[in-house]
């Protein structure tokens, strides 16, 4: 019990610190600065698109890892979770080396389409998706493993096609896992800093997300950084709380 309270205090006290130290009197005008809203909008948009990308690529990957037995599956699973342990800055450099203008794939993109990812909003999405996808994959894979295969087999014996089985049986069974994974994934993408600043750079309105704005504000104006952090906190708590009510109660 005591340890639980200590654990909670450890997580909550720094937030209380932010609240206590926040410059409440200048809050309205600081929040009204166009750069702040721009960074917030960019953060929300990129985190949401990154989550969508993770869903499209991550759910099939999780299915592969959970349901298909192939040689080297354990190795693949370990490789997929690398972004979890890799320092995000290193992840950003790795992305540059592959997708940068002189990267393995990037130089081809550049010469074929005249398009390069670094320093673009698309680059922010790539960096965020890279860092956040393992959260989704692990969560969905866990749900797939926990789901009872016999339901799917029963559906199949009753004549359902593979697609119908997936849509009517598997999906509802693993939906909570997918939602939980997507929420984690979104939250991780929203707070992403290292890979973003390394791979996508920092330019207001294009690649400067909230965490980057907070970091640079901290260099000269700690008060502004606190305001920005509180705003990010407020928005994420509101969205996460809203999602939880909507999904968990109806599930």
């Amino acid at each position: 019990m005591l340890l639980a309270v200590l654990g909670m205090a450890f997580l909550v006290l720094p937030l209380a610190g932010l609240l206590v130290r926040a410059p409440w009197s200048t809050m309205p005008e600081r929040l009204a600065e166009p750069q702040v809203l721009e960074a917030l909008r960019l953060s929300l948009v990129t985190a949401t698109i990154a989550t969508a990308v993770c869903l499209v690529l991550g759910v099939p990957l999780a299915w592969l890892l959970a349901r298909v037995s192939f040689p080297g599956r354990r190795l693949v699973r370990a490789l997929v979770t690398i972004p979890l342990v890799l320092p995000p800055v290193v992840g950003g450099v790795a992305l540059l080396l592959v997708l940068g203008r002189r990267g393995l794939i990037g130089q081809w993109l550049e010469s074929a389409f005249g398009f390069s990812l670094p320093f673009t909003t698309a680059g922010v999405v790539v960096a965020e998706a890279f860092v956040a996808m393992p959260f989704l994959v692990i969560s969905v894979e866990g749900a797939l493993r926990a789901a009872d295969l016999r339901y799917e087999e029963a559906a199949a014996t009753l004549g359902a096609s593979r697609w119908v089985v997936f849509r009517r049986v598997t999906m509802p069974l693993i939906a909570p896992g997918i939602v939980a994974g997507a929420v984690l994934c979104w939250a991780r993408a929203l707070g992403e800093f290292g890979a973003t600043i390394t791979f996508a750079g920092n330019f207001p309105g294009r690649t400067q997300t909230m965490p980057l704005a907070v970091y640079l504000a901290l260099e000269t104006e700690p008060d502004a950084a606190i305001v920005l952090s509180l705003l990010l906190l407020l928005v994420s708590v509101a969205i996460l709380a809203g999602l939880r009510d909507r999904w968990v109660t109806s599930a």
Partner: protein
Amino acid sequence: MLRRLTRWAVAAPVALALVSGLSACGSDEPGTTASASPAASSAASSSALTVFAAASLTETFTELGKTFEAANPGVKVTFNFGSSATLAQQITQGAPADVFAAASPATMKTVTDASMAAAPTTFVRNKLEIAVPPDNPAKVDELKDLADAKVKVALCAEQVPCGAAAIKALDAAGLKVTPVTLEQDVKATLTKVELGEVDAALVYKTDVLSAGGKVTGIDFPEADKAINDYPIAPLSKAPAPDLAKKFVDLVLSQQGKDVLVKAGFEAA
């Protein structure tokens, strides 16, 4: 790369310390932090020196640190290199440092205003240069080429000294440059050129030299209007005040100057 990693490793706990330390909100808060560690510092006072220095001093100060260790057997010098603005924030929040060497008077002023240091001395000056990849893909050869929309330019963010200097130089030339990125310190800006991700960047001459052949430097006349003074000062709450003073003396000595000038700095 390791340098950048340690920066993050340092930044995270410091941000946390900043947040929790600030909640107490007293002007004596940094003092509490300093006095909370006398056990550690007195045991180590004769053997450990911590120097916070601008990212652009990484190579020269590392060398001077080795000289210092050789001249003072048993002493271990530890550096925290980073953007001067970040370091100044860390110091005012009570980070246990002995010496601060900044890349601009403005960042040093943050520290002196907080009464954490007195009487800084300017020890070198640094000039901007245009850095381009060795093959110079955008054919940049003077400052006004950076204003071309087709040229991808990286600058430092205006909050850090190299960014402030870049703005000064561009203003002096009457140029409007739209960079693709505003990097968090000069080494990050240089890295973008080394990797070939941008066509040009404004960095210090010393950074171009330290990159060896990986980037090419181009001098430009407007750089004279944006010369950065580097101040150094022992910190008033230094855990090892004697060593701090000795280290500052070494930097200001002829020997220190030789190392710095060799790296491309101008003597103050």
